[in-house]
């Protein structure tokens, strides 16, 4: 019988690991990165109190520190390379961040409801990009989209829903085939299975799409400069990418807050047993969660394709891990957090690159991941983390 003592009365404290029910606390326990309270042994023994003080301080002000460092990076870029390049990079960061945000939401929703890091999610992103490419070829959408404005709208109205549904079915199918029967198994089993599914999808894409970059032609769909400020040219593509991501995220927020299925998802994430007692069909709710997360990954993939114009069998691997970091940054399980985290990671990626060179971008992202897990495992938004009881 699980010892349920009711939800924690208040914020478990700055470190946020005071509750055994915290999803991220779990994550930290797994990664072995949890701060060890009162066990500062060895050489650091005498420094224990000081270390703890510093640790507590960093944890409390983690968000401020991170945001401060990001502001500093943006400012430094402006000083070093000029305001125009800084503006250009802000734009790039938002575009990239929009894609990370949409993908991060899929990780966070799935983690929130079944406490699984769905490693296959990044590959669902890639697969959906190829789905969209397939639909575009099948219905000759390239000529339609580039022909007229009405044609472009029609092409978008065709490619988005079709790809999102196909991706949603893929995601729900993965859950049904690979994860469902492992739901009550030890945590490591579904985790390793997820890695297996990831390899499987990548393998299929490698065989079907080949080892090289695949040009999707979707980069030609939207063209032209919308406006320019301070020498920074903002294209219609940029506006489309950021706008589309925001619209989808707000739509998801409203869906989860207001609809019956959305409420079923939230309650299942918070207490599966209680959800069952309310008559909620858990399997269907979890399938829906995978469906929606994967559909958003598809939207991200189309946006990616329209913005960058190329796909490759393994792009989802890196992009997925970075988006996962965004989800952890925002507090894994927290949908709003994942959205915000996506944009923040976009900024870190782009400005880290402009300051230290592009080859450092990913190293920086993962340094941030380690720092979050060490100092603020509940993420920037702390207590709002959605976990199962």
């Amino acid at each position, binding site marked *: *019988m699980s010892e*349920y*003592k*009711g*939800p*924690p*009365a*208040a914020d478990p404290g700055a470190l946020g690991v005071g509750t055994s029910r915290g999803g991220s606390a779990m994550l930290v326990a797994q990664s072995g990165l949890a701060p060890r309270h009162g066990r500062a042994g060895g050489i650091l023994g005498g420094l224990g109190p000081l270390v703890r003080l510093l640790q507590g301080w960093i944890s409390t002000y983690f968000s401020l520190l991170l945001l401060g460092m990001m502001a500093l990076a943006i400012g430094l870029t402006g000083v070093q390379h000029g305001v125009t390049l800084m503006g250009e990079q802000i734009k790039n960061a938002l575009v990239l961040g929009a894609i990370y945000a949409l993908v991060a939401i899929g990780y966070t929703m799935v983690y929130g409801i079944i406490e699984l890091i769905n490693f296959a999610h990044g590959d669902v992103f890639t697969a959906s990009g190829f789905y969209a490419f397939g639909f575009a070829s099948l219905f000759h959408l390239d000529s339609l989209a580039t022909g007229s404005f009405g044609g472009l709208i029609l092409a978008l109205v065709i490619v988005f829903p079709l790809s999102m549904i196909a991706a949603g079915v893929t995601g729900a199918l993965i859950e049904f085939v690979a994860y469902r029967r492992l739901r009550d198994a030890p945590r490591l089993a579904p985790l390793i299975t997820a890695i297996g599914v990831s390899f499987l999808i990548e393998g299929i894409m490698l065989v079907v799409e080949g080892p090289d970059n695949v040009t999707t032609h979707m980069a030609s769909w939207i063209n032209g400069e919308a406006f320019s400020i301070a020498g920074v040219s903002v294209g219609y593509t940029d506006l489309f990418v950021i706008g589309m991501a925001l619209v989808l995220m707000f739509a998801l927020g409203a869906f989860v807050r207001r609809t*019956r299925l959305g*409420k*079923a998802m*939230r*309650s299942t994430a*918070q*207490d599966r*047993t*209680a*959800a*069952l*007692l*309310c*008559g*909620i*069909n*858990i399997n269907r709710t979890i399938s829906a969660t995978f469906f929606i997360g994967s559909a958003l990954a598809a939207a991200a993939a189309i946006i990616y394709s329209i913005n960058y114009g190329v796909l490759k069998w393994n792009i989802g691997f890196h992009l997925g891990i970075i988006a996962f970091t965004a989800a952890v940054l925002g507090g894994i399980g927290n949908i709003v957090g994942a959205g915000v985290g996506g944009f923040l990671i976009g900024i870190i990626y782009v400005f880290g690159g402009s300051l230290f060179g592009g080859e450092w971008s990913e190293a920086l992202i993962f340094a941030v991941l380690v720092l979050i897990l060490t100092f603020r495992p509940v993420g920037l938004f702390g207590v*709002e983390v*959605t976990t199962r*009881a």
Partner: protein
Amino acid sequence: MSENGQSVAAPDSAGGVDKVIDLREIDVYYGRVNALSKVTLEVRQGEIVALIGSNGAGKTTTLRTISGLISPRTGEVRLFGKTTRGMGAAQIARLGVGHAPEGRRLFPRMTVRENLDMGAYSRGDRAGIRTDLESVYTLFPRLRERDSQLAGSLSGGEQQMVAIGRALMSSPKVLLLDEPSLGLAPILVDAIFEVIREINAKGTTILLIEQNALLALKTAVRGYVLETGSVALSGPAEELIASPDIQRAYLGM
């Protein structure tokens, strides 16, 4: 008084439909741990039945088995005259079983109102839901005041009210209450039991687990005493109260 002691309600033929809950010799295991063995128990239409016993006796497991959260290895659970074999917990809830579980299990990051709404999740009758919400608020005026507060931030007593209220929102035919008084101040315990009687007076059948055996037996018409997974005694509540064994073991007399 025997294992199938005569009851207050009229006796009926086997499988009679007035048996709301009918457990037939159920054996329940958690892995290798035998939690219930050969438990036979019934609750009839309109009754309040108390389930008492010391910690670990299997009371919670009995309710979990009725709700379908766990399945018996042998034996049969029948609800409203039909077997629940092969049914999931959600399906059983929709038959008309309201369960305020051990530990309350609210949705901590949903408001009081949202928690209550979740109780009515499977219902389509908006008018009925509104009426029931009103009556929950009438039973627990406190909840109306706390309407938009997150359930996780409520006091223990308020959480218990939400747990009972949420179970009531499904408009259940039978209500399972697992230690509704746990951790509450004595004055609140009285209030909760007053509400339990009111709910029953309006026609809802109740199966009640309660640590305070005297209070439970004073509220119920019949009682079952579980000891290490088996029914040790059962019968009309007043007979159980009068039994020297019960008095010694559970009533501290």
